């Protein structure tokens, strides 16, 4: 079981309360597709995702980014049981979507960077540390059902 300090919980929920879910998701997923273009392999059904402009304007990318960050909300609501909360999602990513778990790390990183862009100095080192821990927990939970 993951142990969260009160400060870490506070860092996560206080930022989450102010996050623009659709925008953060769009930013994070756009960055993944632009900065690590090999990830475009998972989005062949999304139309044009071959360059930064196309990606940023792609409404399927926007919708998907939002979906991912909405799902993150489930983890945040269940910080003491992320593994169980994400069991089905993990199976989906492994068995249906066939996503290399390395990608969870990439999205975690770009989400952190997107949050830094939105919050600036308010995204302090300690707050970043709490969110990095959350990303690591989410990555582990999503990777759990792979075998």
């Amino acid at each position: 079981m993951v142990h969260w300090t009160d400060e870490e919980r506070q860092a996560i929920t206080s930022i989450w309360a102010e996050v623009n879910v659709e925008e953060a998701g769009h930013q994070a997923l756009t960055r993944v597709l632009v900065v690590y273009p090999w990830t475009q392999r998972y989005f062949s059904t999304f139309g044009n995702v071959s360059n930064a402009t196309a990606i940023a304007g792609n409404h399927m990318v926007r919708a998907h980014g939002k979906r991912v960050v909405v799902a993150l909300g489930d983890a945040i609501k269940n910080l003491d049981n992320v593994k169980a909360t994400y069991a089905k999602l993990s199976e989906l990513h492994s068995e249906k979507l066939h996503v290399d778990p390395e990608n969870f790390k990439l999205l975690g990183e770009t989400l952190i960077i997107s949050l830094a862009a939105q919050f600036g100095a308010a995204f302090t080192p300690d707050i970043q540390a709490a969110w990095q821990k959350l990303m690591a927990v989410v990555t582990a939970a999503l990777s759990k059902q792979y075998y």
Partner: protein
Amino acid sequence: MTLSAHDKELVAKTWTKIAPKAAQIGGEALGRLIAVFPQTKTYFSHFADLSASSPQIKAHGAKVLGAIGQAVSGIDNVSASLSKLSELHAYNLRVDPANFKLLAHTLLVTLSAYLGAEFTPEVHLAWDKFLALVATVLSEKYR
């Protein structure tokens, strides 16, 4: 992975923007490294203060970003620009190369916090590639 002309242009443009605050940004990036990846503190056991706001950490971060600035000026031959530092890291400092990636990440986060919307996905990509190149150069004499 090589830097395109466009990547180099974006890195240079960003540098011009952040140069006046380079010391703060470097200090903050190293502070974030220590806070987010506490295992990196093992390389600074000789610092009296290892909190994220430590003046020693801030000064050292400023130094590191200064060196990155040198690499920006010599972006067409980063290997030559950082040759001495490459030797220093290989023979004296021997920082495990995995840590270069961690610092690259916290520097990207810091740039994002300072530049906001100006830190576009393309600028982010250019810096990610450039910092990966810097990391490669710094570890190229390790063995």
